[in-house]
């Protein structure tokens, strides 16, 4: 029976926001286990490998957190737009252009004091990402062109534009590959090894760097923006009920543009991690699908920073642990983990309401019994 009616006011928050996502996640992982089994490997061993790969040694854990950093940015990017009911699937392109912003600021202003270069580069990333999101936002608010369509197209445009720039304009002319010169070492963001050196631990290279703290700060920023400021209030009002927003004198046009620009800006911050933190140059295709995976992160995290943090961490584990698995189990390819991501999106997004009514009514009944007992 699909028509179970649950009195929403009686459902405890932890049932809808913790239990239901966990059940959906478990199901996704069970089905993934089935795939691993069909591929001829032992699912239990695969899980062990994932856990070892992502937590078992300090370098692995650092990699997990590095991936988490990227997912926090793209997850938040999607969530902010979604609070205004905009489906921004252009995170990939916005991150790409954001990277251009970081690089241009850093390479041209590297003579300034280092912390100032960092701040300006972060600002540049945000600004470029926001500018790239502004165009679809404008088209949506003034012309009614749906952002889903335009942001997808803008991913392709961003990709083509960057290839053009990397091949013809900003390529490091000393070599053939489509990437830029490296930034001067003085302005690289301090990496995790540098910190661990201070603490007296010696670890091998990892891509984790100071940007992780920027990601944590962004979680706070988004929480504050959405629930504590009038801009967040207005964005949510437009998202929930545009007619009512107009009635209250809140401009849907303005808020669509603000939400999309903040969303694009957050996606752009991925460029800080990748360029100022890790590779120190723009490489072709560096956003590598983080923008799309961010959609899954946001959906799993129910578009709330408190949910996005664990969701991003989970995807970090899957990325890092997954590469450990593909390394150890020849039958499991990289693409298997793309399928696992797909299953998580399927169960926590598209099939989100599959078990929700049953689970909620189960808990409501139990709690009622406790009260009456």
């Amino acid at each position, binding site marked *: 029976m699909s028509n179970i009616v649950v009195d929403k006011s009686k459902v405890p928050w932890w049932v809808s926001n913790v239990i239901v996502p966990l059940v959906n996640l478990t199901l996704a992982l069970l089905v993934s286990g089935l795939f691993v089994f069909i591929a001829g490997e032992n699912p239990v061993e695969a899980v062990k490998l994932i856990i070892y790969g992502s937590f078992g040694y300090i370098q692995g854990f650092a990699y997990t957190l590095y991936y988490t950093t990227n997912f926090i940015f793209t997850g938040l990017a999607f969530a902010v737009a979604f609070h205004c009911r905009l489906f921004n699937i252009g995170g990939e392109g916005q991150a790409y252009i954001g990277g251009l912003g970081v690089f241009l600021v850093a390479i041209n202003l590297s003579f300034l004091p280092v912390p100032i270069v960092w701040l300006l580069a972060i600002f540049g990333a945000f600004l470029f990402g926001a500018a790239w999101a502004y165009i679809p936002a404008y088209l949506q608010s003034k012309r009614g062109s749906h952002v889903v369509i335009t942001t997808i197209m803008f991913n392709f445009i961003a990709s083509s534009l960057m290839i053009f720039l990397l091949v013809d304009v900003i390529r490091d002319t000393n070599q053939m590959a489509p990437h830029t010169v490296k930034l001067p070492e003085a302005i690289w963001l301090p990496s995790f090894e540098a910190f661990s050196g201070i603490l007296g631990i010696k670890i091998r290279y990892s891509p984790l760097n100071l940007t992780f703290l920027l990601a944590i700060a962004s979680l706070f920023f988004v929480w504050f923006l959405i629930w504590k400021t009038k801009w967040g209030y*207005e964005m949510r009002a437009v998202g929930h009920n545009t*007619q009512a927003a107009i009635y209250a004198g809140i401009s849907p046009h303005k808020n669509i543009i603000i939400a999309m620009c903040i969303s694009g800006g957050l996606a752009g911050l991925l460029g800080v991690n990748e360029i100022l933190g890790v590779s120190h140059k723009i490489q072709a295709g560096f956003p590598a699908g983080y923008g799309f995976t961010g959609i899954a992160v946001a959906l799993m995290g129910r578009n709330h920073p408190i949910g996005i943090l664990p969701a991003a961490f989970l995807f970090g584990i899957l990325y890092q642990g997954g590469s450990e698995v593909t390394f150890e189990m020849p039958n499991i390819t990289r693409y298997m983990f793309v399928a696992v991501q797909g299953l998580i999106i399927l169960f926590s997004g598209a099939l989100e309401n599959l078990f929700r009514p049953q689970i909620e009514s189960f808990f*409501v009944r139990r709690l009622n019994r406790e009260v009456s007992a």
Partner: protein
Amino acid sequence: MVSPILELTNINKSFGHVHANKNINLTINKGTIHGIIGENGAGKSTLMSIVFGLYQANSGTIKINEKEIKLRSPRDSIINGIGMVHQHFMLVENFTVLENIILGFEGETVFGEKLEKAKKDLEKLCETYNFNIDLNATISDLSVGFRQRVEILKSLYRGAEILILDEPTGVLTPQEVDELFKILRSLKEEGKTIVLITHKLIEIMDLTSEVSVMRQGEMVGHTKTKNTNKEQLAEMMVGRSVLLRVDKKEIKKGEIIFKVNNLSVKDDLDVTRVKDVNLEICSGEILGIAGVTGNGQTELLEALSGIRKVESGNIELFGEKISDQDNFLNPRMLKEKGLAHVPEDRQRMGLISDFKACENLIFGYHDQEPFSKSSILNNKEIKEHSKKVMQEYDVRPSSPTLTTSNFSGGNQQKIILSRELNENPKVLLVGQPTRGVDIGAIEFIHQRLIDMRDRGAAILLASVELDEILSLSDRIVVMFDGKIVGEKENKNVTDRELGLLMAGVSE
């Protein structure tokens, strides 16, 4: 000779945790008009949907002519002689009356002799009950009253002995209501049984011979109509005594503060819906706009409140032009100038049902102190404010953090009203303030509007409930087809006179 035609015993129906019908027993006698009355959400429509086979009861039995039957779908009910006229008509607009009636029941009647026979049968039915319908007319050309007749005719043609009418008068003018009642009476003469679901006490007193009252999913009483009165029925519906009339002091009219000059407004489809309207409202006065739904009231209110663009003409507030075709102030600027607006459709416009109550209580005022300071919301202040106004306006439950969709219609309306009245507006635009609101809350809302008027506010009240217009307004204008077709002082004006104007019959 009285014999029961429909007997319901111990009917129960739940939707999740909502117990919509609890142990309902009901006996309806053959050849009577039986009224079922109750507030919104009392379970009337659920009960009748069970009888019509749209829902299945969780338990209980249904007997027709003393024979127990199972009703699994509307088809079963039609076979057993039950017909239903829904609140929203189920007609294909671009088909003719005849085509609509045989639709889904055509069998072999689409061509030739059978069709001729169907037509003859229908003509006879029309004559018997004085329907006065052209079977070849297209539905879209017919008025609402006639469309309703087509629905009744459809049920009769399918052999209905019991006819259920769900709130049949909501969309009709008083004259159309008279015509409908005539038809219903003649159906009764011919031995048909009629079940009338309504929340209007006048209709019960006028038409029915027996009445059953429902409250919160339970049947709270059955009585012969002649042994009861409106006050008693109202008390049974609400569970306490209610004041049916509004106490109103003598008008203390001030100067004109709100003026509308030659206003025309178009809707989203670019159709002119408000045509050359002129209005003047003084402080301390309630101006009522009467009219059947869809005659331009919605667009008028939207234009006056700054939501919709003015096509031509202008609007003045305190002698200052606030809107014309080139400029218009947005709703927030108008609020700052002392104009508040309670919109017609609270779900679509008045509030955001996914927001918490406290978030809705500051909606539109959210960027004013003390609710926010330099763009940061002061949640503590917002909650305290909410707690205060929720108590003052008796919003139940008075819990500011509860999601708004969990409040009943009446309480949602109180949330909007408290928000808009709290700032002591100079001009108040109100659309359908009591639509879908229970009697207890209606009384409260009316009293608040009168209080505002006595404090010197200029109030524009648009309502399709003529009773509401008559009991609250000092002056009444009637809108028909986007135009003001009449203006009356609310002294000695009758609902008949207004009804003629509402139907477009000019003086």
